[in-house]
């Protein structure tokens, strides 16, 4: 389930770039019990990094409070068509995933 597909859109506006990223992740809080009554271990995305043309522009720390299959959207100043946006995440179990897209 973890490291499932990601999807990203990056659209250029007037002087800014809107980015929206969809991530497939269980985001388990560690408080939920499964059908057999056993605690489901914590499993959540810890950090999220955004790079524009290879330069880190955002490094976010997130926690269990974020829902399953999270959506992140943010606005970057400036940007031109063809800029490479890369978004990657790392979870508390060491799994990671990344996606790259061009600004359109």
């Amino acid at each position: 389930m973890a490291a499932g597909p990601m999807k990203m859109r990056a659209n250029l506006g007037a002087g800014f770039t809107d980015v929206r990223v969809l991530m497939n992740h269980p985001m388990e809080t560690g408080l939920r019990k499964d059908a057999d009554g056993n605690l489901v271990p914590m499993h959540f995305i810890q950090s999220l990094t955004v790079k524009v043309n290879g330069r880190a522009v955002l490094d976010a720390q997130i926690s269990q409070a974020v829902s399953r299959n999270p959506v992140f959207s943010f606005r970057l100043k400036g940007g031109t068509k063809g800029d490479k946006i890369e978004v990657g995440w790392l979870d508390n179990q060491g799994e990671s995933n990344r996606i790259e897209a061009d600004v359109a």
Partner: protein
Amino acid sequence: MRLLALAAALALSSGARADDSAKEIQRYRQMVAEGSPAELFELEGETLWKKPGGPKNVSLERCDLGEGPGVLKAAYAHLPRYFKDAERVMDLETRLVYCMTTLQGRSRADATARVFGTADRPSELELLSAYIAGQSRGVAIEPGMAHPKEKTSYELGRALFFHRVGPWDFSCASCHGEEGKRIRMQELPALHEAKYARPVIASWPAYRVSTSQFITLQWRMNDCYRQMRTPEPNFGSETTVALIHFLTATAQGETYHGPGNKR
């Protein structure tokens, strides 16, 4: 006097609050729609569609969903319809099970062993439905209505919609037969009327936010019957397909824009 004024103010504010909450729900739905995890299910469904499987180790890519073998564009919007090879009317999920048995050589028991998934592990049919339905975006909903068996199926679905059954003597129409009804904050569309069926059918199957699951129309029929306390209908039975046929035909002409989102 002051008390009275306070009571009046309270009454006013609670009216305004109902308005606000309707607006807030609208805003929430829009936000969910803009970044719908349904797209992730579409991606996984595409992978699954192209993945070889079953005893014959072939993918489903040659499956004929009504528009020709392997043609996905507009296929979902034109279902349910009559299939000559199977000699019956089929909806998407029933047809997929048919392809799994004929193309991949799997047994029906194997193909239907796990039709409804969980948030942790979606079922094959849910993932495939997401992908295939997505290929009909922008296409007008036109289920088969020409073949005599299609007409029979539609009529059966219509009859079933109003047919009261089970220990609670419920029919679909008990909840979905009148305008303006709701369960908690959830509006109940009167699904035998085009006005209400159109937006609903145009967005199924869908991602359900509260359970993080992708849900299909077969699931919806199954779960409505569970809520009506009837015995569980067989997956892809004539009954469930007929109901889906009736609902889809009622929404005829609407542009498909799913897979959508449910609360």
